[in-house]
Each structure stands twice: as structure tokens, then as C-alpha cells.
């Protein structure tokens, strides 16, 4: 990634930096994430993705004893079915694009994880590595296997393996995310309390944040895949209230933007839904007025989405400023607030 260095280990939130990007004036300000409350106004609404992060990566034995890494692309549904991406040999320390592909498995092939067995019930036309699995036992058994064998998805740039503790936000509830909704990882309860004292309202969505990269060109070009979300009525009401009083709706992370804008593109209703919306420079935002995001380099799908918030010239200037100022990138990195 040109210009940026990744944060290679979890950091205390006091170390996390915040680049404030003001769209109207084009001004860039270097701050700390701890000062977030000072950047927002009474009457604003901060929307958090309260999805907890799953231990979405686990090892399985395929036909002929092949060792296959399975990465869930979504949470296991109520029927014990789930979309997943398969990885071949190598470990998380290898870049995903450098790992050899797994053996091609057809519908009916089985994966064994200790006493649990899953059958491949669908193979995507996009890539043979993108499959649909059906666990043959109970959903309870599949979850127990996942939490016993599974690890959070790891990244080649990490110094050490991440534990589940490292990838949860302070407000994580339903385990729906296969990779952490990382823009919120640095938010602490002290910071959230400070925001509320300032008159900033808090609301949540649950959005099943998907895989960020698979090393398979065809799949990576299609990312993000369709993702499910659940928006409570309280959040719909809070958004309406915020816009009525002239406040701003600020999303914590691209997953919140996807959940809200994906829904608004159809109908702004509460409840569970699936979105395939891809946002970019030509998108018109209907709900979200600003975003707190991680540092993403040009070319990443997250960066593409930021084009909906700021013009290319301002974004380029912000990224260059961050790179020159040694801001750290990726999941455990620094943050940027575009308002």
C-alpha cells in the first residue's frame, strides 16, 4: 500500500489519531480520536455498528485429507447454512494473493471439523472458492465448533495473531461481522459518554461486515458481497429527529453507511434486510452526512465508498497528508472524520 504503514498490533485508544476533513473549507486538522466529541455538535447523531466480530476463520479437513482454511463471509443462518471462502495451504502470515488456491470442491463435497461436518451445497459462478456450506448437525453444534476452533480473520501485516478480544468494539452485541467493524474499535465508553454530555445522540445498526480481501481477483472485484443488516425503529426515529433539528447523521465506519444508504435506496424501514449497494463518487447520499472511518488507501473498496463523501481532489489531499504525517492504516490504524 503506497505511502501508508499499517498498525501491526492492537493499540490503546489514546494512541489513535484522527484526521478531520472539512468538506466545506477543505481544511485538514490533526487531532486525537479522544477529541471526537469536540469535533461534533449538539444535535448530531453518531450511528454505530454493534455487530460483534466472529471467529470467522477455521481449519477443516477436505476430501483426501486436504487441509483447507474456511473463512465465513457472513454469520451462520438459522438453518445452519453460510457462505464462505476457501483458502489453500499457507497461513495468515502469507498475503492472501500469494497463497495457493485450495482444491476445487464440487457440490456434495464434505468438510470435517472434529465432530462437525459441513457439506458444500453451492459453488459460486464467480469463483470455485466462494461456496455455500450447510452444517449437517445442529446450529448449536456448528456455533460451538466455530467458537472452539475459529480465530478472528488475521492479516499478513500483523506482528502477532489477533484474539477475539482484540477485534470487538466496546458496544458489540450480535456476532454478525466476519471482520471487525474497525472504525469503532478505538471508541471507549468514556468517549461515548463525553459525546452524550455534549448533546450528541447515539444509535445503532447491526451490519454483517464482510471479508475485506480474499486474494481471489474475481471475488475481490465483487467485494463487498451482499451483506445483511438490521436497523431498529429507534434508529430510524433518531435519524428523522436529527435531520428535523438540523443535526448531522454521522456513520462510524463504511458498514453503517452501507446499512443505512442501502436501505434508503429502497425504503427506510426498520428490521432485517440485505444490501448489495456499492457506493462511490457518483452516489447520492440520502441519510448519512458524515463518516468516521479508518485510513484506507486509493484502490480499496472502502476508499471507493469515501468518494461519496468528498471529491477526489480533497480525498487525495487528505490521504497524502495522512501518509506524510505517518498516520497508520488498516484495521488497527488511525481514523479520519469527514464532515
Amino acid at each position, binding site marked *: 500500500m503506497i505511502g501508508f504503514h499499517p498498525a501491526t498490533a492492537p493499540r490503546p485508544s489514546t494512541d489513535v489519531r484522527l484526521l478531520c476533513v472539512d468538506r466545506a473549507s477543505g481544511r485538514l486538522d490533526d487531532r486525537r480520536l479522544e477529541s471526537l466529541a469536540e469535533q461534533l455538535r449538539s444535535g448530531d447523531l453518531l450511528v*454505530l455498528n*454493534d455487530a*460483534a466480530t*466472529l*471467529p470467522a476463520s477455521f481449519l477443516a479437513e477436505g476430501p483426501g485429507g486436504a487441509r483447507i482454511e474456511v473463512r465465513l463471509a457472513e*454469520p*451462520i443462518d438459522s438453518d445452519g447454512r453460510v457462505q464462505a471462502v476457501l483458502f489453500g495451504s499457507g497461513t495468515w502470515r502469507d498475503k492472501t494473493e500469494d497463497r495457493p488456491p485450495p482444491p476445487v470442491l464440487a457440490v456434495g463435497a464434505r468438510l470435517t471439523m472434529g465432530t462437525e461436518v459441513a457439506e458444500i451445497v453451492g459453488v459460486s459462478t464467480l469463483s470455485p472458492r466462494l461456496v455455500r456450506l450447510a452444517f449437517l448437525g445442529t*446450529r*448449536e453444534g456448528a*456455533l*460451538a465448533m466455530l*467458537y*472452539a476452533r475459529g480465530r478472528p480473520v488475521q492479516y499478513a501485516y500483523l506482528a502477532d495473531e489477533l*484474539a*477475539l*478480544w482484540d477485534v*470487538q*468494539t*466496546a*458496544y*458489540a*452485541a*450480535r*456476532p454478525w461481522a466476519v471482520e471487525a467493524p474497525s472504525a469503532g474499535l478505538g471508541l471507549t*465508553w468514556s468517549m461515548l459518554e463525553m459525546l452524550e454530555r455534549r448533546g450528541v445522540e*447515539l444509535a*445503532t445498526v447491526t451490519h454483517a461486515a464482510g471479508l475485506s480481501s480474499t486474494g481471489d481477483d474475481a471475488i475481490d472485484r465483487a467485494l463487498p458481497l451482499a451483506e445483511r443488516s438490521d436497523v431498529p425503529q429507534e434508529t430510524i426515529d433518531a435519524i428523522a429527529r436529527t435531520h428535523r433539528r438540523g443535526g448531522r447523521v454521522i456513520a462510524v465506519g463504511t458498514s453503517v453507511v452501507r446499512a443505512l444508504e442501502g436501505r434508503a435506496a429502497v425504503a427506510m424501514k426498520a428490521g432485517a434486510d440485505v444490501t448489495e449497494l456499492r457506493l462511490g463518487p457518483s452516489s447520492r447520499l440520502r441519510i448519512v452526512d458524515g463518516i468516521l472511518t479508518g485510513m484506507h488507501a486509493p484502490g480499496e473498496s472502502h476508499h471507493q465508498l469515501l468518494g461519496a463523501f468528498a471529491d477526489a481532489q480533497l480525498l487525495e489531499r487528505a490521504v497524502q497528508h495522512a501518509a506524510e504525517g505517518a498516520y497508520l492504516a488498516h484495521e488497527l490504524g488511525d481514523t479520519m472524520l469527514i464532515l
Partner: protein
Amino acid sequence: MKDINVLITGGSKGLGLALGKELASRGARVVLVARGKDALDDAVSAIRATGGVAHGIAADVGEKEAIHRISGQAVALIGPIDVVIHDASTLGPTPLRPLLDTACEDLERVLAVNVVGPFRLTKVLAGPMVLRGRGTIVFISSDAAVSAYPTWGAYGASKAGADHLARILGAELQATGVRVLVIDPGEMDTEMHAAAMPDADRASLADPRAVARSIGARIEEARS
């Protein structure tokens, strides 16, 4: 308590099991956590046999790695947790012994299960409760938390620590809609009591089922 999601640690025996049965009979969906899988399976089957909704997670609350395993599975099985009951506890080695004869590692283990475990689990489960503006966190306490009974050092110190942790948590969450309750159930006729005081007159001890009924009522009251 219809459609209320409850997580109970130490849920396969004694008061924890009685609470699981009681709250399930009041309409709650319960997840029981305990170390021993066989006793846990029996407890879950007993609740399901009476039409209740119950699941079991075999885990040790004294282990840090177990915490997200517990919370993640529980929430995936029944949904966001409305009520967590910290009932799991250990006496340490029995027969009970004076503090000067207590191994350092034994004290650490008692603190890990009785204080640090509930702290970690609360840390993970209380955040979403605060954002929803409602939730109940129950710490099952003991008179050993306030009375200095000789030979009860490890357990008593741990229960005093857990009580104070709960009180501070209650003060910090005061305006959030999340309630923190500390409940001393009194002396009950349980396996744990027999391990601590094998010579006790069982007729003088309370039936955990009766205690569970009164705790169930207190939880309902706290939620109303």
C-alpha cells in the same frame, strides 16, 4: 419474562440450575454456562422437557479466552442478553483451610472465577445493554463477603471483591437504565454448601428452588 434473554453462569447445578428452571418457566429464553458438559446437557434437557427454551455452553468463566466464546454463542443462540446472572463460583480447595495454608495459586484461581470472570463477562455484555438503555446484571453474593469466617478466606475475599465491583458498576451505570443487583441467597442445600460444611443440618438449609423463585421475582421487579 416472556422473550427475555437470560444468561446464567454456574447453571448446571444448585442455585444456577434452579434459576434456569424458574426463569424459563416464567417465559425467559435461558443460556446456561458450566464447565461440565454432562451435567449441563442434563440441565438443558430438564428445562426443555417442561417446554422451556434453554441452551448450554460448556466453558470456564475463570478463563479469559472463554468469555467471547460464551457471549458470542449465547447471543447467536437467543439474541442480545437482557439479564446476566453471575452465579458460578468456586470455594477453592475443600476442606476449607486458613489463609496461611492457602496456596497462592488457589487464591488466584478463586479470584479468577469469582471476581475476574464476572468482570470480564460484564464488560462484554453490559455495553450493548447501555446502548439499548435497559438490562439487568445480577451478582450472587454470600454473607462470607461481609463476615470474616475463619477458613473462608479465599472465597470470602473474592465475594467481597465481587460485591464492591458490582456496587461501583451500579454507580457508574446509574443513569443508563441498566440495573446491577447484588443478592445474598442465604445458606442453601446445595452440593457446594455440602463441600464447605459437610456436617451442616440439611433441614436448616433453604431449598434452592424457593430461593430461585424469590430471586426471579426480584429480577422481574427490577425490570419493571
